[in-house]
């Protein structure tokens, strides 16, 4: 059944082809059009957020300037700024993807109720436009990491984590976007729990370094998989499969989310134009 459902989504994308990339670009243009410094805002906003948190944790609460992480039975010590930076870069993408992804259909309402449009591609081209921003921010991050910490072959794992992250949150929006089209309650719920999710994720602190059983519970938060994954690639010099428990819990969540996404999208697709 999932295969049949998935075929609809694939067909919608096939018929749309290259235009998905053009619309992703358009989406970016739409966001930054009319502002004097335009696309620079994509960097300024996260940079400011990062600065504020860094300020609070390093200058404000002085003893939190360093982070100690136990990897391969060695304790690595990181400057809080570097540690936070590598965590924040995926987080910016993730938080945008969760909140904006849920609104995707509602904010492109005209495409759904006025013209014949392959609705599932809306989520794809908006996700793409977010990943473009993410790529740019990652590049800046990598320069900083290279200077502060150095480079290694493990860095190439970025090209594993980044596409998986793209897919994971695309699948999530297959569930959330049609549901939010039905009722804005879910959208409000998501926005209100986002700051909670931030503090339950090891963006600023090290999620491995919590008293048991919290450190185990944290493994069930899929966002931690990416935040720690980016640190695996850039800081810890560790492969993604080395921490098996973390990897397999994530894999299970990934599959469940995918099935749920395909199921919910197909279940609600034909009803959306009537309720939006």
């Amino acid at each position, binding site marked *: 059944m999932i295969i049949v459902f998935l075929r609809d989504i694939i067909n919608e994308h096939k018929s749309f082809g290259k235009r998905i990339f053009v619309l992703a670009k358009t989406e970016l243009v739409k966001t930054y059009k009319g502002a004097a410094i335009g696309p620079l805002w994509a960097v300024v906003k996260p940079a400011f957020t990062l600065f504020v948190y860094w300020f609070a944790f390093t200058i404000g609460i002085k003893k939190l300037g360093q982070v100690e992480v136990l990897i391969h039975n060695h304790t690595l010590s990181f400057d809080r700024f570097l540690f936070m930076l590598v965590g924040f870069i995926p987080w910016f993408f993730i938080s945008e993807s969760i909140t904006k992804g849920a609104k995707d259909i509602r904010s492109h309402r005209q495409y759904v109720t*006025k013209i014949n449009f392959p609705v599932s591609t809306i989520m794809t081209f908006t996700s793409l436009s977010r990943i473009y921003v993410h790529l740019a921010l990652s590049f800046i991050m990598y320069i900083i990491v290279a200077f502060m910490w150095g480079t290694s072959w493990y860095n190439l794992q970025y090209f594993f984590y980044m596409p998986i992250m793209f897919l994971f949150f695309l699948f999530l929006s297959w569930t959330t976007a049609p549901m939010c089209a039905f009722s804005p309650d879910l959208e409000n719920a998501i926005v209100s729990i986002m700051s909670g999710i931030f503090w339950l994720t090891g963006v600023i602190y090290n999620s491995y370094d919590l008293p048991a059983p919290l450190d185990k519970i944290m493994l069930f938060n899929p966002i931690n998989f990416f935040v720690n994954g980016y640190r695996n690639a850039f800081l810890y010099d560790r492969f993604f499969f080395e921490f098996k428990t973390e990897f397999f819990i994530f894999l299970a969540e990934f599959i469940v989310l995918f099935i749920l996404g395909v199921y919910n999208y197909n279940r609600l697709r034909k009803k959306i134009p009537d309720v939006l």
Partner: protein
Amino acid sequence: MSTFDDMKKVEVDMTSEPIIKIKDVSKTYTLYKSDQERFLALFKKPKNPIIHKALDHVNLEIRRGESVGLMGDNGCGKSTLLKTITGVTFPDEGSVEVDGMVAALLELTAGFSMDMTGRENIYLKGYILGLDEDTIKTIEEAVIDFAELGDYIDQPVRTYSSGMRVRLGFAINVNISPDILVIDEALAVGDAAFKTKCRNKIKDIMESGVTVLYVSHNANSVKEICDRSVYMKKGQLLFDGPTEETHLVYLVDKRTAQIEKRKKRIAKLEKIIREAKDGEDIRKEQELLPKHRKRLEQFEEDLAQYTQELEDYRKEHYGDEPTVSD
């Protein structure tokens, strides 16, 4: 005023495969009592929901080059039928097959991005409608030319007047060389000169053999454009035939319904007057009654006239034996 009189009629090949094939299509809308109920409907089927039947077993076949008018009062299912043809909404039962590109002159400004320029929006809208870049490039000049926006074409659409936006939308929709053109009284665009231009353009499109679906409350304009029309009522397709005949059927049906309604109203008033107790104020009813009776008379006269006209029409076209029944 009319520019359609001298239009060349396109020969329709009645043996060809239909370009639009609507087979036994039904559609119901679920009306949710509240936002809470709509939210719950995400997870389980609502108990005894209010259901509005928008389309009720509709069958319709339209061939390439035909122009078909849709008649019927508000809420009869015309818009829903058009939406299933344009692929915006989906039938609950039955199938809709459309073999070609549909351009709808319904939502002319749908999909515009206000912060982008007119030119950028031509591309955006083109992509949304399913065109590739090369195709859009070839129509770009024609669109800009037709929309008469001048230097404004490189200004953000948010600075446009609503008339300018509609003009741009119209220009894009008519220039994408569709196979099927859906028109919902969209001829009223801009000033008189632009209106004439739009009508001429539609005429050109029709002469080139494009299939046209036309919805209008103005029977005369339907007669001008469409040889064939269908009459819809309460989600059902009641009559399908030559426009003139369909219009008469529509008028007869409408007057019959109006007479029915008026009679009920009169009966109600009479009852109030009859059963009024002494001292009760019935002046208003007494005043209204003759008015209603007069309208009823008028309607009955109309009905007789339309019935006669319909009979004459059928005699003239099908001989003495009526071959088409409603």
